[in-house]
C-alpha cells in the first residue's frame, strides 16, 4: 500500500504534460464506463502496468482515476498550468485564446446575448445584492445579547410554574409533604450485610453470634427453627386448616340458627315447636314400645315420676306470688285470667295419671291434648277451664278500628254468652284463619271466609261494630293503617254512614266540619294535618290575606306591617280559629285599623299644618336672604311649585317619630292562652291574666334630641361596645356587608354539625411531624403524573400590565388569601341574625345628625 501511494505521488508530478490529454479521455463517456469496469482488473494485476507503452500508460491513468473514485469524495484537483503563456496570473488563470488569430468576420458578428456574458451578469447581480458585512459586535455587546436571550428563555421556562403557584396560593388546604411516599423498611439482612465489625468489642460479639450459630443473614431462622418448620408438610397443614375452617363454619351456622330461633318471640311458634317436640317424643315412644317394650316401660315410669313430682310441688297451683297477683288482676284483665287458667290446666295435665292401657289408644289420646294446646278438650272438668274460647277473639276486636272501640266493648259484653256456645275448635279455627289473612293481607279471601263462617255457623262475628257490614269491611280490611283510613274514609262515606260517624264520639270540631261545610276543603285540611299534599286552592288561601282596604302609599305599607304584628299576637291568643271566624275577625281588625290609620293620618296632617309655618319661618334663613332680591319671590315660588308634591317637613317629622318609636322598648307579652281558663277559637285571655303577664319595660331616659325639632340623633351607638367593634373595613373586604357576613357565620360545634365543624375549621397548611418537606418538583404537581411538564407549560409568562404605572400589583395581594370573603358565602349554613342583638362584628353606621 505504501509503495502504491508513493508511486502515485511520483506519477502526479511526472504526468503534468499529459494532463490535458487525460482530461480529454475522461470526457469521453465510453472511457468512463471502462474506468468503472477497471477496478476489478486493477485489483487482479496491478503490477503489469509498466509492460506496454502508451496503452499501458492510458490504462494506468484509468486505474488511478478508478482508485481516486474509490476513495469517495473527489479530490480537489490542483490547478496546474498545462501550457506556456505570456500572461500568468497567480490564480491559475490561463488565457486560452491568447495566441489565436482574430478574424474580422468574428468581430463583425453581433455579440450573442446568451453566451458566456449571461453568467457574468448573474454574478454581478449577486454581488450587488450582498450588503457589506457589518463589523462584529464588541465583546460586551455580544455578551449582553446572549444574556438577554438567555434571560428571556429561562424566565419563560420558570413562568411555567405560574399556574401551579397561583393554585397553591389560593388553595384552601395544602398538605405537606406534597408527595406522600411510603416509608420503606430496609430488611435487617441488608443492613447487617453492609456493616462489618471493626472494634474489638464488636468482633467479640460477632464471634459469639457465630459460635451459637445465630443467623446474621437471610433467612433469619436458627437451624432448630428451620427443622421445626420443615416438620409439617405443607399439604398436610393445608388439609388440616381446611377441615378446621369447615368445622368452624358449620358451628357458626348452627349457632346463628339457634340464636335466631331463640330470639323468636311468637308464642304460637313456640307452641307449635313444643307440639312438634311432643309428637317427636311420642313417635319415639311408640317405636320404643314396639321395638323394646322394657325401655318403653321405663319411660312410662319416668312420666309417672314427673307426675309424682308435680303432685308434690306447688309449682303449678295458684299459690305462688305471681299467681296470686294474677288472681287479683284476673278480675279486670282477660289476659291474666287466661294465663292463670293456662297454668291450672298445665297442673291438671301433669297430674293426670298416665293410663297404662293398650298402646293403640294412647297416642291418639295424647295428640288430641296437644293439638288443642292448653285449653283442654278432655271433659275432665269443664268448669275448671273457664272460657278460653270466648276470650280468644277478644284481642282481635281490640285490634280492629280504634274509633269504635267503645261500642264493641259494650256489645262484646252482651254477646259473651253466645260466644261461649261456640265450640272451641271452631274458635281456634277462626282465630288461625283470621291471623293468617291478616298476615297475607288478602281482604277478599277474608270477606269470603267471613261469609262462609256466617253461613256455616250462623253465629255472629266476634268483632262486630255498629257500622254496617260493608262499611266495616272497608274500614277494617283495607290495607291502609287505621287512622289514615279514617281520614280517607271520610269523603267516600255514604251519607247514612256519615251520620253514624257523627253519632260516634268524634272530636267536636271535626264533627262540626263534617256537619256544616261542604266536604272538599275540610278534607284538604285534614289531609294537610296528616302530612299529605293539599290541593293548591287550600295553599293559596293560606298564602293570601285578603282585606277590604287597599294599600297604596308607603305609609299604608308600614301600617300593614304593624298590623301583621298585631295579627300574630292575636294568633297566639286564638291558636286555631275557625276559618270563617278568622275571616270575620280579619274584617273587623281591618276596619279597626283603617279607623286607626285614619285617625292617625288626621293627627299627622293636623300637626303638620300647625307646625309647618313656624318651621319655615324659623329655620329657612336662606330664603329670607333671597327675598330681599327682586327675583327672590319668583324663584321661591318656582321652587315651591317644583316641590309641591313632597312635604319635606312632614316627611322628616314622620321619620323622627318612627325613630322615636323604634327606640321605645316593647312590653314583653308572656300570656299563654288556655292556661287556667278555657281556650279556643274566639276566646281571649282575660284582662286580669294579660295584666299579670304583660311585663312592661322600664322607661327609657329622655332622648337627646327631645328639644331639637329638626334633628334626629341616633342613640344606637354604645360606647362600651364600640371599643370592641371594628371601626373601619379591614383589608381584603370590599363592602361592609361582606365583612358582616363573614362574622355572622358561626364556626363552632355548638352551631354546626360535626362534619361542618371539621370542614370549617380545617387548617390551611397541614404538615406531618417528622416528615421532610422537599421543594416542589414536576412530579408533585397533581393530576399531571406522566406529562407533568405539559401541564406546567399551560401558561407562559403572564403580562404584567401594571408595571409602567409603577403600581406593580404584588402577587400576594392580588389574591386575597387568608380571609377571603367568599369563604363566608360558601358556607352552606347562612343564618340571619336579628339586628337587635349585641353583635361585636356588626357596627351600626352612626347617623348622628340629619339637619333639614
Amino acid at each position, binding site marked *: 500500500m505504501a509503495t502504491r501511494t508513493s508511486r502515485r505521488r511520483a506519477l502526479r508530478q511526472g504526468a503534468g504534460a499529459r494532463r490535458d490529454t487525460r482530461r480529454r479521455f475522461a470526457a469521453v463517456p465510453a472511457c468512463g464506463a471502462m474506468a468503472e469496469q477497471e477496478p476489478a482488473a486493477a485489483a487482479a494485476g496491478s503490477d503489469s502496468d509498466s509492460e506496454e507503452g502508451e496503452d499501458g500508460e492510458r490504462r494506468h491513468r484509468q486505474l488511478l482515476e478508478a482508485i481516486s473514485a474509490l476513495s469517495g469524495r473527489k479530490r480537489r484537483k490542483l490547478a496546474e498550468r498545462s501550457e506556456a503563456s505570456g500572461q500568468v496570473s497567480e490564480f491559475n488563470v490561463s488565457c486560452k485564446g491568447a495566441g489565436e488569430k482574430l478574424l474580422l468576420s468574428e468581430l463583425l458578428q453581433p455579440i450573442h446575448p446568451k453566451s458566456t456574458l449571461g453568467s457574468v451578469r448573474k454574478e454581478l447581480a449577486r454581488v450587488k445584492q450582498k450588503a457589506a458585512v457589518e463589523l462584529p459586535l464588541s465583546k460586551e455587546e455580544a455578551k449582553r445579547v446572549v444574556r438577554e436571550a438567555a434571560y428571556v428563555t429561562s424566565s419563560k421556562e420558570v413562568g411555567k410554574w405560574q399556574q401551579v403557584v397561583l393554585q397553591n396560593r389560593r388553595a384552601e388546604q395544602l398538605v405537606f409533604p406534597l408527595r406522600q411516599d411510603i416509608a420503606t423498611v430496609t430488611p435487617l439482612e441488608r443492613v447487617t450485610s453492609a456493616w462489618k465489625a471493626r472494634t474489638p468489642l464488636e468482633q467479640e460479639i460477632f464471634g459469639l453470634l457465630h459460635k451459637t450459630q445465630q443467623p446474621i443473614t437471610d433467612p433469619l431462622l436458627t437451624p432448630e427453627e428451620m427443622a421445626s418448620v420443615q416438620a409439617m408438610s405443607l399439604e398436610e397443614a393445608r388439609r388440616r386448616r381446611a377441615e378446621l375452617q369447615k368445622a368452624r363454619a358449620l358451628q357458626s351456622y348452627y349457632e346463628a340458627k339457634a340464636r335466631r330461633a331463640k330470639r323468636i318471640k311468637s308464642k304460637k311458634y313456640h307452641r307449635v315447636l313444643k307440639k312438634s317436640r311432643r309428637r317427636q317424643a311420642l313417635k319415639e315412644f311408640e317405636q320404643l314400645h314396639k321395638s323394646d317394650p322394657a325401655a318403653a316401660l321405663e319411660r312410662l315410669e319416668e312420666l309417672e315420676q314427673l307426675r309424682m313430682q308435680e303432685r308434690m310441688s306447688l309449682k303449678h297451683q295458684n299459690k305462688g306470688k305471681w299467681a296470686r297477683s294474677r288472681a287479683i288482676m284476673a278480675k279486670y284483665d282477660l289476659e291474666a285470667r287466661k294465663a292463670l287458667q293456662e297454668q291450672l290446666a298445665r297442673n291438671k295435665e301433669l297430674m293426670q295419671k298416665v293410663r297404662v292401657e293398650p298402646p293403640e289408644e294412647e297416642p291418639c289420646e295424647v295428640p288430641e291434648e296437644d293439638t288443642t294446646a292448653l285449653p283442654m278438650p278432655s271433659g275432665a272438668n269443664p268448669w275448671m277451664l273457664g272460657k278460653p274460647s270466648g276470650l280468644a277473639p277478644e284481642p282481635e276486636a281490640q285490634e280492629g278500628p280504634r274509633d269504635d272501640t267503645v261500642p264493641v266493648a259494650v256489645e262484646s259484653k252482651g254477646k259473651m254468652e253466645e260466644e261461649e256456645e261456640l265450640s272451641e275448635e271452631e274458635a281456634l279455627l277462626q282465630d288461625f284463619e283470621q291471623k293468617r289473612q291478616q298476615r297475607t293481607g288478602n281482604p277478599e279471601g277474608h270477606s269470603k271466609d267471613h261469609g262462609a263462617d256466617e253461613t256455616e255457623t250462623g253465629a255472629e262475628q266476634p268483632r262486630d261494630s255498629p257500622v254496617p257490614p260493608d262499611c266495616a269491611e272497608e274500614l277494617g280490611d283495607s290495607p291502609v293503617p287505621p287512622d289514615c283510613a279514617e281520614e280517607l274514609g271520610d269523603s267516600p262515606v255514604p251519607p247514612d254512614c256519615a251520620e253514624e260517624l257523627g253519632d260516634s264520639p268524634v272530636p267536636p270540631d271535626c264533627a262540626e266540619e263534617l256537619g256544616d261545610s261542604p266536604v272538599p276543603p275540610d278534607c284538604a285540611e285534614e289531609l294537610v294535618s296528616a302530612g299529605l299534599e293539599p290541593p293548591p286552592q287550600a295553599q293559596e288561601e293560606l298564602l293570601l290575606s285578603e282585606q277590604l282596604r287597599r294599600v297604596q302609599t308607603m305609609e299604608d305599607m308600614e301600617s300593614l306591617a304593624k298590623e301583621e304584628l298585631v295579627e300574630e299576637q292575636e294568633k297566639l291568643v286564638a291558636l286555631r280559629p275557625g276559618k270563617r271566624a278568622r275571616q270575620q275577625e280579619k274584617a273587623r281588625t281591618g276596619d279597626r285599623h283603617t279607623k286607626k290609620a285614619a285617625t292617625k293620618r288626621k293627627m299627622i296632617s293636623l300637626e303638620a299644618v300647625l307646625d309647618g309655618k313656624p318651621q319655615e319661618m324659623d329655620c329657612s334663613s336662606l330664603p329670607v336672604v333671597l327675598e330681599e332680591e327682586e327675583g327672590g319671590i319668583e324663584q321661591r315660588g318656582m321652587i315651591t311649585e317644583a316641590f309641591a308634591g313632597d312635604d319635606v317637613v312632614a316627611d322628616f317629622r314622620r321619620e323622627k317619630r318612627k325613630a322615636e318609636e323604634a327606640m321605645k322598648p316593647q312590653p314583653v307579652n308572656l300570656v299563654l292562652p288556655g292556661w287556667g281558663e278555657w281556650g279556643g277559637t274566639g276566646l281571649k285571655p282575660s284582662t286580669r291574666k294579660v295584666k299579670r303577664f304583660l311585663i312592661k319595660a322600664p322607661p327609657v331616659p329622655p332622648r337627646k334630641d327631645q328639644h331639637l325639632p329638626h334633628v334626629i340623633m341616633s342613640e344606637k351607638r354604645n360606647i362600651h361596645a364600640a371599643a370592641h367593634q371594628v371601626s373601619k373595613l379591614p383589608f381584603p373586604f370590599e363592602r361592609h356587608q361582606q365583612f358582616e357576613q363573614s362574622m355572622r357565620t358561626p364556626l363552632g360545634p*355548638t352551631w354546626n354539625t360535626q362534619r361542618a365543624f371539621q370542614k370549617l375549621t*380545617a387548617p390551611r397548611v397541614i404538615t406531618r411531624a417528622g416528615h421532610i418537606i422537599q*421543594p416542589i418538583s414536576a412530579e408533585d404537581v397533581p393530576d399531571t403524573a406522566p406529562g407533568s411538564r405539559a401541564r406546567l407549560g399551560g401558561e407562559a409568562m403572564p403580562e404584567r400590565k401594571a408595571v409602567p404605572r409603577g403600581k*406593580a400589583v404584588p402577587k400576594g395581594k392580588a389574591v386575597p388569601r387568608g*380571609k377571603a370573603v367568599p369563604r363566608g358565602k360558601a358556607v352552606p349554613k347562612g343564618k340571619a341574625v336579628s339586628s337587635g342583638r349585641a353583635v*361585636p362584628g356588626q357596627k351600626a353606621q352612626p347617623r348622628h345628625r340629619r339637619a333639614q
Partner: protein
Amino acid sequence: MRVKVLSRNPDDYVRETKLDLQRVPRNYDPVLHPFEVAREYVRALNATKLERVFAKPFLSSLDGHRDGVNCMAKHPKSLSTVLSGACDGEVKIWNLTQRKCIRTIQAHEGFVRGMCARFCGTSFFTVGDDKTVKQWKMESPEYGEEEEPIHTILGKTVYTGIDHHWKEPVFATCGHQVDIWDEQRTSPKCSLTWGFDSISSVKFNPIETYLLGSCASDRNIVLYDMRKSTPLKKVILNMRTNTLCWNPMEAFIFTAANEDYNLYTFDMRFLESPVMVHMDHVSAVLDVDYSPTGKEFVSASFDKSIRIFPVDKGHSREVYHTKRMQHVITVKWTSDNKYILCGSDEMNIRLWKANASEKLGVLAPREKAAMNYNQKLKEKFQFHPQIRRIARHRHLPKSIYCQIKEQRIMKEARRRKEMNRRKHSKPGSVPFVPERKKHIVAVVK
C-alpha cells in the same frame, strides 16, 4: 290496656365501649343557641390570650463552638442532624433530638465561610478562608480511621460561599466569581463573571435547578443560568445584599436580605421592582431562609433578633430574641417546618419553635380539633381591636424598641419633608415613588 311510654333507641345514647366519649344528642336549632357571634368573640379572645400565654418559642441552645457560628447547613435526609461551621474553622455536627454535638472537625484555618450538604446526604462541602473547598463524609470515621476530607480543592482565591445542586453532582462556589464545579474534577466546569467584585453568596434554585442567584458586594443581585453558563440579569439595589434564598414552592420567587434593614422578595421575571418589601429589622439583615412550605421565611439580623415574615406581608409576624443572643449571623428553618435554628456571634446555636405557642408532641384528636377551632376563631376575629391588640403584643429588648422608635421618627420626618417639598414645588416635579421602587437603583440586562 296499653301504656305508652317514651322509648329511645339505645344505639343513640349507649356507647360501644367504655372508652368512647359519651354521646351528646344535640339540637342545632339556632333559637336554642343564641348570641353566636358574641360567644365566638369571647372564645376568640380567650384563644388569643392563651396563645400569648403559651408563646414560649425558645427550646434550647446548642453550645460547643469556640467562636461565633458563621454558617449552618441542614441535612437533606435527616431531620435531627444539623451542621454548623464557626469562625475558627471548626465544623460541628449536631443531633437535635439529643441536643448534642456528635462530631467535631477542624475543617479550615480561619473562618468556615460556607457549607452545604450533598443532596443525598452522604457528604458535605465546606469552604474556608484558607482558599480550599473540602468534601467530607457525613458519617463519622470508622474506628481507627482518621478524620480527613474526601476531596480537597485548593483554589486561587478565597471562597465566600458554596451551594450544592439539588439533583446532580454539581456545586457552585462564589468568591471573585461564581464557579460551577463537577464533583469529580479539581477545576471548575465553568466560571461565571459579570463585573469584578466579591460575591458573598450563591444559591441554586431548588425547583428549576439550573438557575442560580448570587449577591455581590457592589450592591447587586445577579441571576445565572448554569446550562448556558451565562449570567441572566442583574439588579442593583441601594445597599448591599448579604444573602438570598429561593422559595422552595414557587420557582421564580426569591428573597434577598439587605444591609438597609429590609428584605426584598423578587419575582425573577420582573426584577424592576420587588414583589414585597419586608421591613421590621432595625439593623442589617444577615441571613434569610424559607420555610419548606414556602409560605414564610425567617431572617437573622445584626440587631440581635430573628423575625418571621409571611411571604405576602410587609411586616413580621413574630420576633425572637433572648438576652444573651448577640448578632445573629445565620439562620435555618428545619425541613419539617417545625423549628428554627439560628447561629449567632456568641458561639451558640439556638433552637426555636417556628410557631411560638404550638404544643409539641402528639396531640389527641380533640386537642387537635380545639386547636384548629381556636386558630380559625383567631383568624375570624383578627380585625377586632381588642383581639388584635393582644395578638400583636410582643416584648422587645430596650435597644431594639428604642431603635424602632427612632427609625419611625426618621421615616416620618423624611415623609414630611418630601411632602413639604412636593407642596412647594411645581406639581408633578416631585413624583410619588412607591416604596417598592425606592430601593432599586437599576436593572442591568
